[in-house]
């Protein structure tokens, strides 16, 4: 179970479909609380709009690392090996790449060769079409005329060791994960697939894990104090899913 912190200018924010961002707290405090509740990993997505904001992200990663003893994935604005290096040096265990990998898929290969596949996460935001799904980049601004499943397969062949799969249609809506999308991607690749976008209840998490996800990511439900990681893990265990506690 993976809480996600969307961070802008050093603060955790939350919006719907990347719009209307509002403050949701201090990243270090939230990271510490989530680990104590039993979170298995943490994801930080830097949603800063400016280079100055990106500078804050490295400080945030460094501060979170000093208190966090579970894996930390950081994404948002990773375009080059140097960007990845900065985040890894600051304390990320894995870097997530999205738009830059779509523009230049060889970035995944270069990152995997330099840092190892286990450091490279493909962040795939997928939007439904009439026929399936297509990748969405630049924080939802641009749809890529390409099949999202085929892109997931290509990305793993090029070096991605994990896929963070966000349903653009469901993100922030709390209406449940896009289960057909999860099944389609996890059937097509051998690497772990993390479900993201739409979680509101334990039932949603259970459905995602049964649909093929290796792990489930959520943000709103944790930040709004509606429930805790521990309570959700209890529900997963009660449903018969093997759960670390």
């Amino acid at each position: 179970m993976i809480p996600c912190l969307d961070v802008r200018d050093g603060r955790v924010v939350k919006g719907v479909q990347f719009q209307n961002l509002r403050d949701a707290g201090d990243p270090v405090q939230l990271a510490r609380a989530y680990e104590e509740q039993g979170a298995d990993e943490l994801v930080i997505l830097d949603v800063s709009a400016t280079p100055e904001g990106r500078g804050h992200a490295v400080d945030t990663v460094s501060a979170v690392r000093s208190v966090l003893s579970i894996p930390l994935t950081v994404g948002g604005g990773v375009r080059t090996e140097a960007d990845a290096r900065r985040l890894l040096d600051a304390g990320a265990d894995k870097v997530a790449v999205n738009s830059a990998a779509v523009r230049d898929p060889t970035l995944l290969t270069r990152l995997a060769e330099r840092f190892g596949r286990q450091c490279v996460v493909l962040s795939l935001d997928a939007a439904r079409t009439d026929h399936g799904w297509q990748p969405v980049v630049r924080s939802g601004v641009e749809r890529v005329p390409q099949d999202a499943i085929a892109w997931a397969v290509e990305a793993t062949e090029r070096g991605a060791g994990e896929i963070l799969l966000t349903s653009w249609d469901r993100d922030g809506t709390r209406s449940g994960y896009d289960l057909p999308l999860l099944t389609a991607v996890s059937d097509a690749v051998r690497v772990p697939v993390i479900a993201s976008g739409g979680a509101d209840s334990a039932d949603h998490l259970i459905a995602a894990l049964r649909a093929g996800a290796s792990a489930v990511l959520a943000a709103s439900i944790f930040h709004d104090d509606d429930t805790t990681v521990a309570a959700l893990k209890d529900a997963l265990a009660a449903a018969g899913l093997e759960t670390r506690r």
Partner: protein
Amino acid sequence: MRVGVVTTGAANLASVRAALLRAGAEPVLVESGSALQGIDRLVLPGVGAFGPAMAGLRERGLDAGLRAHIDAERPLLAICLGLQLLFEGSDESPGVRGLGVFPGRAQLFPTSVAVPQMGWNRVIAPGSAHMRDGWAYFANSFRVACGGPRSGAGASDRAKDASSTCAERTELDACDSRKWTSAATSDHGGPFLAAVERGPLLACQFHPELSGAWGAALIARWLSC
């Protein structure tokens, strides 16, 4: 307490350093064999591929230094690829010799399971000085296969089963008495070595620095041995 952290320039050390600092230790980067002088306690983190990591150790004169450190029975914590480097070799880099402290070699996980293994897995650690049963975080494509977990009753049945089911496996019991004093196992497409230990030498295939409170407690026990 000063703890040397061996680096070959490639690995990402931030998490290991942060974990040592949280445990009250003072991590010191060790980039050459000569820098081992005065270091009693060493961490060998490993991220990346087997061949380049061994080449990095040799270029810096760290391979001989590590062997001397181990032969002198000084404390060593090897992590992930660090464990594999202590074996004879790896299918990841055929023809490259490992440090050969332990017999056996690392091989790719079978095609029936997700590769790389990225995530939490159960660890069973019977009779270990440092380890406890629990959940650990793994991020690896290669591993040293082995027989199933050792247990008191039925151990001979298990040994028989292990040797008959998979000839490639390092035979846990056979190696045990010669080379290591206890081993922990996990399962991902079959049992594999999650950790081996011999006195103050503790080698983990998982990442204790990323394994939450369980991993932090393990690091604390190793620091106090």
